[in-house]
């Protein structure tokens, strides 16, 4: 099929860039179309939403030669968990600031979770299998997963099959007890989702996060030197040196479909049409299929699945400016990811209000910080802040949230409140408006067992191929989902290349 390009990537988020780079590297003529004037999606801009430490998956790192394009990681970032009983430092399997017994239990727990997430990790780097008519490749994928779980040995396998669908609350209660240490794990298990620590399924989200963001080993999240901007820049370079074109301020209005039921290109909002036999969308499943493609190209059942997909974002982003650091917070502390939740109970309580579309009185918070010309700027994430807030989000609601976050931080870090010179809140609805994120959900849709693997984004469309031939989903709404691994983009590009773009 002839056209302007071999492939169009809609959206220059990190997954879109990874997909574009992989396609370009394979010799495809690629254009990336980005709505906003800057690239990077949640990683873009001077204070990117995704300010937390993360790692592009090692397979992509080497596959795209990101090191050559300047991407370097610092040491794995440690976590500091404050509030409640005290101050706990977490460095991989090592916990400091807790009793010796608890530290030992935590080390056991961490190693155990690392093993289990390792067994799952194999599933992340390929398209999920389909369950139909015994397709050999798919059976093989399933068999491999079975074998890798079996490979853990009998005791581990039993334990993994027991805890895999249970909740992080029970797990921590059994292994380490509640407190700041458990709170940090609870934050890892729930951040970005509409789930509290007591919700069954949170062990799986924890394992999943460990498996997909393991740039420095399972669960060890490293900060790229230069921050998010460095990741974006490396991905852009990887794409551009292979010949991909990146156009910003080029919002796509719709995906074009021909009479033979094939996606053949896109129309931009300015009316310009660009054609290519492969379209990869980094937009959310709902935006891609219901807005850009349109329900007229979908079966009613798939439309219903998309309508019912859980996409209620629950995290608000706060930028806090401080003239100087308070007494309770040192510059050295700010080299950590700092969790301020106290214990799991607090995280669960913060979730209670959100279930009813209300703001929690005491949110659970984590933050990182950096030095600016005028002092310090903290990038904080507060949960749970539901996008479907009763009465909608307003300036007053944001102020209320900012106040409660500052109060939480002030409670854990003496003198904190007095140092604040400015606060800016980005609610989930702001994220939706700015980035086209359905429901303001980071992961483009809840990461839960019923929206994972062969059910992401929904059963029958989980292999990156969307119902219209030639259209692929390459964002976090596809397997393996959210966080900054780049795997959905990588896998989707692989699938598109495999299909040859001319089925």
């Amino acid at each position, binding site marked *: 099929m002839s056209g302007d390009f071999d492939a169009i990537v809609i959206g220059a988020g990190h997954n879109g860039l990874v997909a574009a780079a992989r396609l370009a590297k394979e010799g495809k003529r690629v254009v990336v179309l980005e709505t906003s004037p800057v690239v990077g999606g949640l990683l873009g801009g001077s204070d990117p939403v995704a300010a937390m430490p993360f790692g592009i998956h090692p397979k992509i790192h080497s596959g795209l030669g990101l090191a050559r394009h300047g991407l370097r990681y610092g040491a794995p970032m440690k976590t500091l968990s404050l509030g409640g009983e005290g101050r706990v430092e977490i460095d991989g399997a090592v916990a400091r600031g807790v009793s010796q017994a608890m530290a030992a239990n935590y080390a056991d727990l961490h190693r155990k979770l690392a093993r289990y997430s390792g067994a799952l990790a194999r599933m992340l780097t390929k398209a999920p299998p389909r369950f139909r008519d015994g397709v050999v490749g798919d059976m093989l994928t399933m068999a491999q997963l079975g074998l890798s779980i079996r490979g853990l040995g009998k005791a581990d396998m039993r334990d993994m099959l027991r805890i895999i669908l249970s909740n992080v609350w029970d797990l921590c209660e059994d292994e380490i007890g509640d407190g700041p240490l458990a709170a940090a794990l609870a934050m890892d298990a729930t951040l970005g989702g509409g789930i509290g620590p007591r919700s069954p399924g949170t062990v799986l989200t924890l394992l999943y996060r460990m498996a997909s963001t393991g740039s420095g080993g399972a669960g060890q999240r490293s900060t790229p030197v230069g921050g998010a901007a460095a990741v974006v820049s490396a991905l852009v370079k990887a794409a551009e040196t292979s010949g991909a074109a990146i156009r910003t301020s080029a919002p796509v209005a719709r995906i074009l479909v021909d009479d033979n*039921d094939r996606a053949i290109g896109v129309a931009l909002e300015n009316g310009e049409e660009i054609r290519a036999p492969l379209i990869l969308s980094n937009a959310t499943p709902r935006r891609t299929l*219901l807005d850009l493609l*349109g*329900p*007229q*190209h*979908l*079966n*009613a*059942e*798939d*439309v*219903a699945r998309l*309508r019912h997909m859980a996409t209620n974002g629950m995290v608000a982003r706060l930028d806090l400016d401080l003239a100087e650091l308070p007494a309770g917070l040192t510059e050295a502390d700010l080299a950590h990811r700092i969790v301020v939740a106290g214990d799991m109970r607090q995280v669960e309580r913060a979730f209670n209000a959100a279930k009813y579309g209300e703001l929690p009185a005491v949110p659970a918070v984590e933050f990182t910080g950096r030095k600016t010309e005028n002092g310090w700027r903290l990038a904080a994430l507060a949960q749970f802040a539901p996008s479907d807030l009763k009465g909608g989000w307003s300036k007053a609601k944001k102020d209320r949230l900012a106040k409660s976050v500052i109060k939480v931080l002030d409670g854990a870090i003496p003198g904190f409140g007095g140092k604040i010179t400015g606060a800016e809140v980005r609610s989930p609805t702001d994220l939706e408006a700015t980035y086209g994120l359905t429901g303001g959900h980071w992961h483009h849709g809840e990461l839960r067992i019923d929206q994972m693997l062969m059910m992401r984004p929904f059963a*029958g469309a989980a292999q990156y191929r969307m*119902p219209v031939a030639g259209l692929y989903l390459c964002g976090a709404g596809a397997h393996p989902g959210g966080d900054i691994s780049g795997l959905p983009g990588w896998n989707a590009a692989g699938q598109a290349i495999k299909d040859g773009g001319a089925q």
Partner: protein
Amino acid sequence: MNKALTPRPQMPMGVLKTPFHERMDAENFQQSWMNWNGYASPGVLDTAEFEYFAIRNQATLFDISPMCKFRIKGPDAEAVMNRMMTRDIRKQKPGRVSYVIWCDEDGNVVDDGTLFRRSEDEFLLFCQEPQLLWIKDVAWGFDVEATEVTHDLAGFAFQGPTTAATLRDLKIRDVEEMRAFDIRDIKIAGKRVMISRTGFTGDLGYELVMAPKDALAVWDAVYAAGQRRGARIIGNEALEMARIEAGFLLPRVDFISSQTNLRVNRARTPYEIGLDWLVTFDKPHFNGKRALQRLAGVAPKRKLFAIEISRDKAAHHALVYHRKTREVGFVTSALWSATTKRNIAYAWLEAPFGQIEKDDLWVEIYLQREIEWQRRMERVQIVERPFFVHKRRTATPPLNF
């Protein structure tokens, strides 16, 4: 708690009465009633055979008020109906009716029905199963309003060779020009009636739809005028005989809707049911299109066949055998056809039987003779549907008899 609370009555249980109930009740000597979609519908009024012969010889009134009815109205009405149905609805002009089926995402049939195009932007859909949620699902994202009008429209089928003459007696001039599947808005007894030249009998006939408050006046006028030409009220049993002869299928009897099947492998495609003539790919995407395109090229695993059976005993609930030994299918509807003098039935047969392997097929019929059961093997022949359709069904202008 509000002390002045007035209790809300419970929803009525069981069957309700349609607007025609009184009239049917007066003639229902057997007092045989069936539950059709929550309404009392006559099974037999006096004798099924006589009611059946009235369809083929005179004129009959059959209450279709319980049928599920939906109105689809709005700028996108055509687009939504075209997206739902397997036929090309863009070709259906206002004032025309079409027989339609619709499918799920896997190409399995959800239901069949008759689609009335009332205007550019309004359709009425009549069918057997409740479909409001399905229509709303299909219409999601489109500018259209779908409402259930089952209880807001009454109607009866007026079927048989003397129906046109009766309508002429009532001075319905539209009768002369109405072709099969035409709709007209007329007045009978001063009441507004939507009349269509449609039916479930394979014979000359009409369906009349009106507001419930006008229902009795219209019924009475037609019934009275029909008396000169032998009009009578009929029940489900007589209609069932006519519909089998006429080649029509009944959901829940001959196939099961893919929205109600409990066992996943019970849903059926148009290719299996033999309704592939209703599927066209020369139109934009419609529900199930991609699956149907895949299915169109392959031989179905099983198929519904019209069969003819030796001798005269109807093969109700019979199993079908190959070489009298291997079980290869079963009968869904069966009838000794009094008009054609053929022993007819519909049967599901597993491939390749009926498709390639057409010989040496048998049905196993159990006959009760004064308590005792007898088993008979009768020979099966694959034949074409319908078993019977009279030319007068479509002749325009219609003949008087």
